[in-house]
């Protein structure tokens, strides 16, 4: 092991041919995904501008979520990760949604309505 320490200044061994081909295949995929995302952003903008006001929120958020999933699953390699990370992230996602749902509920469910309901 000490010989390696002495030759610190030399470049590491180059990757094998087969490894290079593998990685390059993936590199093409990433560029493609990037292009797809850019298009999706443009779609989101077009959708938001042209859709009626009531649909606007839902439609835009759907496109955004798809975009986000693409980043997470492919660029961040989520779909290749083991169960540990998945389970844990799904847990976080659940908390996230509970938080938002309760925020909504806190705004809409007020005591004045409760009192009103009983009359």
């Amino acid at each position, binding site marked *: *092991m000490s010989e*390696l320490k002495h030759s610190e200044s030399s470049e*590491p*061994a180059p*990757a*094998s041919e087969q*490894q290079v081909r*593998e*990685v390059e295949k*993936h590199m093409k995929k990433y560029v493609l995904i990037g292009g797809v995302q850019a298009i999706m952003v443009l779609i989101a903008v077009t959708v938001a501008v042209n859709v009626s006001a009531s649909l606007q929120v839902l439609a835009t958020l759907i496109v955004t979520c798809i975009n986000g999933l693409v980043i997470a699953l492919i660029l961040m*390699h989520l779909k*290749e990760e083991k169960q*540990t990370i998945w389970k844990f992230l799904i847990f*976080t996602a659940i*908390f996230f949604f*509970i*938080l938002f749902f*309760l*925020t909504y*509920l*806190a705004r809409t*469910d*007020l*005591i*004045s*309505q*409760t009192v009103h*309901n009983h009359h």
Partner: protein
Amino acid sequence: MATAATTHSHDHGHGHDDHHDLGFWQKYIFSQDHKVIGIQYGITGLAFLFLGFCLMMIMRWQLANPGVPVPFIGPALQKLFPAIFSSDPNNHPGMLTADGYNILGAMHGTIMVFFGVVPVAVAAFGNYVMPLQVGAPDMAFPKLNMASYWTFFVSCVIMLSSFFVAGGPAKSGWTSYPPLSVISDSGPNVHPFFNGQTIWLLGMVFNITGSLLGSINTIATCIQLRAPGMTWMRLPFFCWTQLVTAFLLLLAFPPLEAAGFMQLMDRAFGTSFFIPTGLMVGGHLTHWSGGGSPLLWQHLFWFLAHPEVYVLILPAIGMVGEIIANNTRKPLYGYKAMVGAIFVLGFLSFVVWAHHMYMTGMGAKVSGFFQTTTVMISIPSVILVTALLLSLWGGSIRFTTPMLFATTFLPMFGIGGLTGIPLAFNSTDLYLHDTYYVIGHFHYVVAPGTIFAIFAGVYYWYPKACGRMMNDVLGRIHFWFSIIFINGIFFPMFLQGIAGVHRRWYDGGLTYDPIIKPVLHWNNFMSVSAFLLGATQLIFIFNFFYSIFRGRRVPNDNPWDATTLEWDTPTPPGHGNFTKPITVYRGPYEYSVPGADKDFTPQSEPPKSDKPAAASTPALAH
């Protein structure tokens, strides 16, 4: 995609080389060793616990003797802290002002929770004991560990500095509710930025950051650095509690950090995140744009603060579990159920927060949801306490000093938990909210609860860290006086609360004298108990430092005859912890195994060759 090109070396961690000598600064101050960092957290945290206790004693003086200047140290206090003390009508200095009482109340809460209990129970014990118990050479990220302590240290300095600015420290409660917290500490006599509330917010931001870095480290260590053979179900119960606590901190703190930023923006940039439209202060319309919501702060604050209280209790339950197993000489009853209960508790703790907000005008759906989840969360708590209680049944109980504190934890936590039940229902909470009943409830859980568990942990693990035992006689005196006086302080609070005494009256209720007269006299009793409790702690402090130099030396590395891995190290453990590679062969509480020659079998002891071990081979089984 893991096309790993070959690594020419073995796993080279970036832990520093132990071939060269570390200087004093790197060994004791900017250390990356989890044991040193654990002790640093411990000393800092204990110092803040002491400070928080002193703040409380001043408050209790006022409650028992409203308007009477603090004796002896009154003049000095007034000189040092003019925002908190002033002279009484006869010009005697050292009387607590109304604002001063609010300051002490807010700072007592903040300091005890974020600068006292969490650093000691979670960071100190977690850092010191957990890596040893999983069989790791250190935490997963030693540099990050050091960074998290020093970030915490910066937050301590910031928080303490608030005592010395014009206007004094934060005075809007540890809960810091707007609009009061946004408009307080502003005006002509106060600096626009260096004032109590703004500094409080800044200190909290640093505290939270340190906490987050620490919890990442804890989780990574627990998952990745378990020794070979340490499967999940062989993990000591304390490690499970630390793991779940770390998750609570990781996920619950960030919304408070976000809310802290927003309150800082409200104070520094005039935004209206929490300011409602048309706010009037002192009879004048304010100039804010409005459109904000004070309720938003409450939601974000309690989203953290509820899991925070489980952060306060879980490590305590963990430590009590370890000590009970060791001192009953039998395994913990219902280990699997307890682990399950901790996870359920952790999850549920995220969805109960608005039970602190029943009085904010929420409708039936929202409050129904929270009442249900709050009642549900009592189930895992009961499972935990019952399992610990049942662990005592049939045991050979040794009432060592740690065991005294650990067993007392159970009924004390029981009282705390049971008194929480009327608070869970909004019908009864309507009456009890913001009364002394609430204060009694949560103090029972934290003070004779968590703090007793901390004492138990200190007495228990002290021999491993110092190589000497703490004095046993002094320990028992400490225990008996503490248990008596602490109940003296907190039990009457239930009586006062039910009579309607409000939790933040600075004069002890004098203004409402006719209504609450029957319970007013308890103030005196409680304050005397508080001072006597304080005096008792001096015994502990003396014992702690004295035993470092003159304590009885431990007879061997494992003075309690325990089974978990931390007792397998030299005393105190050196850099890298274990002198030989560790393999785990059995569960954490193999006490009194039938047919064994000793009444305990350490986790790392290889099975006898003629008795094929039921435990699996030391491969990394999941």
